């Protein structure tokens, strides 16, 4: 178990380094002079010289990368072109908002998805199963940014029940929750579809195995059979929950853009719009790190749930 955990941790290091290379390369992917990608157009000559030295733009690429990595590891993600604020501050503030949104949307999608998936598996072929299948296919097919717009049209424009934009700065906790409702629903649609699907098929796989048949033949109560099925399907369900949480944190750009929710996605969108490469880099690096660590955590938790994995 501990050997596996150590191995898995070590494997995450090259992945993170690789991700950092991609993020580093973004400055050079951007068309034009890399200096222009990280500096406001109206910068003075002295400022430009200072930035050149700080980034090491006159040195070969591998050296530039190491210089940049050294700064990143110390928490220096550069300064925003638009606001001249340190990127790390912007990212920190927005990450909190994104986390809140990801958690609430996870609560919705995990709860509904697992419940619906299990119910569908145990009622295979019946009406409820059909409903679950429909939810699943709609969930994985719907462009969630469009669903967000529809929600705004219905609940904000037509019914005028819920606010459409922002996060209600200084409006109190209730106002914050009211602002969170629509983005939460929009963001939970895709994970809801995916989770319903995976949970249903994982539970069905177990239900169709001989040992469950044996349990039923022994006259075990339905509730005990249910427990058996859930514990056996747990590892597979766990994996999908981990991935989907990552999606809700890192993939919320489009939803946050629709609702102007001041999270990382909104910041990213703003950065793209303003061609603010340092902010773009910072947000993506932080989210990727989060995602890798999340996957790592899920993997390790899984070895606790399913001891077969570590031995594998």
């Amino acid at each position, binding site marked *: 178990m501990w050997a596996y955990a150590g191995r898995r941790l070590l494997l995450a290091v*090259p*992945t*993170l380094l*690789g*991700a950092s*290379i*991609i*993020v580093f*390369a*973004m*400055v050079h*992917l*951007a*068309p034009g002079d890399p200096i222009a990608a990280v500096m406001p157009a109206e910068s003075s000559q002295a400022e430009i010289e200072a930035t050149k030295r700080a980034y090491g733009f006159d040195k070969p690429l591998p050296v530039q990368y190491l210089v940049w990595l050294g700064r990143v590891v110390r928490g220096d993600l550069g300064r925003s072109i638009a606001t001249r604020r340190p990127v790390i501050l912007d990212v920190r503030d927005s990450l909190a908002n994104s986390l809140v949104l990801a958690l609430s949307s996870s609560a919705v999608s995990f709860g509904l998805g697992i419940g619906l998936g299990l119910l569908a598996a145990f009622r295979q072929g019946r009406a409820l199963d059909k409903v679950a299948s429909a939810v699943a*296919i*709609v969930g*994985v*097919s*719907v*462009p*969630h*940014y*469009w*669903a967000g*717009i*529809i929600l*705004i*049209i219905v609940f904000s*424009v*037509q019914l005028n029940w819920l606010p459409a934009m922002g996060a209600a700065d200084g409006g109190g906790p209730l106002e914050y929750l009211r602002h969170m409702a629509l983005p939460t629903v929009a963001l939970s649609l895709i994970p809801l579809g995916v989770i319903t699907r995976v949970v249903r098929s994982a539970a069905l796989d177990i239900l169709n195995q001989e040992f469950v048949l044996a349990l039923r033949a022994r006259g075990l109560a339905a509730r005990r059979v249910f427990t058996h099925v859930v514990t056996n399907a747990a590892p597979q369900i766990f994996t999908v929950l981990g991935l989907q949480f*990552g*999606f809700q*944190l*890192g*993939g919320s*750009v*489009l939803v946050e*853009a*629709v609702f102007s929710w001041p999270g990382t996605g909104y910041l*990213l*969108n703003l*950065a*793209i*719009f303003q*061609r603010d*490469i340092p902010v*773009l880099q910072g947000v*993506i690096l932080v*989210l*990727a790190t989060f*995602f*890798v660590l999340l996957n790592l955590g899920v993997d390790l938790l899984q070895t606790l749930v399913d001891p077969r994995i570590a031995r594998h």
Partner: protein
Amino acid sequence: MAIAGALPHDLEPVAGAPMSYWRTVGWRLAHDRMTLVAGTALTLIVLSAVLAPWLAPFDPDAGSIRLRLAPVGAPAHLLGTDEQGRDMLSRLLWGGRMTLVAALTPVLVGLGLGTGLGVLAGYVGGLTNTLVMRTMDIFYAFPAVLLAIAISGALGPGLANTLIALSIVFVPRVVRVAESATVQVKGLEYIAAARASGSGVGPILRHHLLANVLGPILVFASTQVSLSIILAAGLSFLGLGVTPPAAEWGLMLNTLRQSIYVNAVVPALPGLAIFVTSMAFNLLADGLRDAMEIRS
């Protein structure tokens, strides 16, 4: 017949040429109601996109200020007009062209490159495998949406950049599937038998390996099309895809978003088109997956 056992009323076959594998798959697809509906819808969507220049009643880029945001069913404008008074039907037809190209190309690139790399890594194994697979792992450090936005955000807007960004999303995914399918098939005894017959790597790959890994890869790729549609339209929704005034579903959704207070139905139409197309691809992928399972 090859589908013996899958059919309730089929008798034990006695003689006659059985259907080849792909004909069986085709037969099953044609007999699945959901697949038929989805297939028909897709055919119509693709046809309307291809034939847009002939079908569209108006020039998609020509607007008229007086006719802004006409409702659905307005005279001459069946689906209304957008915020610049351009005919929605014409723009939806033309937009489908763009969205489909932007979504299908990356999946095809992923299918080609990903299969090549994955089969190579799986069949050769060893250091090659480690190198290829660890590199692919790096791209898995990002959720798909984030990776696409990161790359096209850095590259800047434009159709070409969208295609590059989305291809980078799909290649590693196909590589993973192709590699694991290859490793699995490679260990089977019929590959050993082919080697024992003195066959070189070429014929083994062609006749024994590819024929057996292509199925799962194809099924996987088909499930990715709908994601690709959502992402491609999503990129232009963020202003990263095709540039205005070109018609593209995601971009149309973006520009019409400001008009929901004036007209609630017309701004929803481009998204509905994305939704229906993506769902049709998903249903078709499901049908394909079921049809390609070998039942004995």
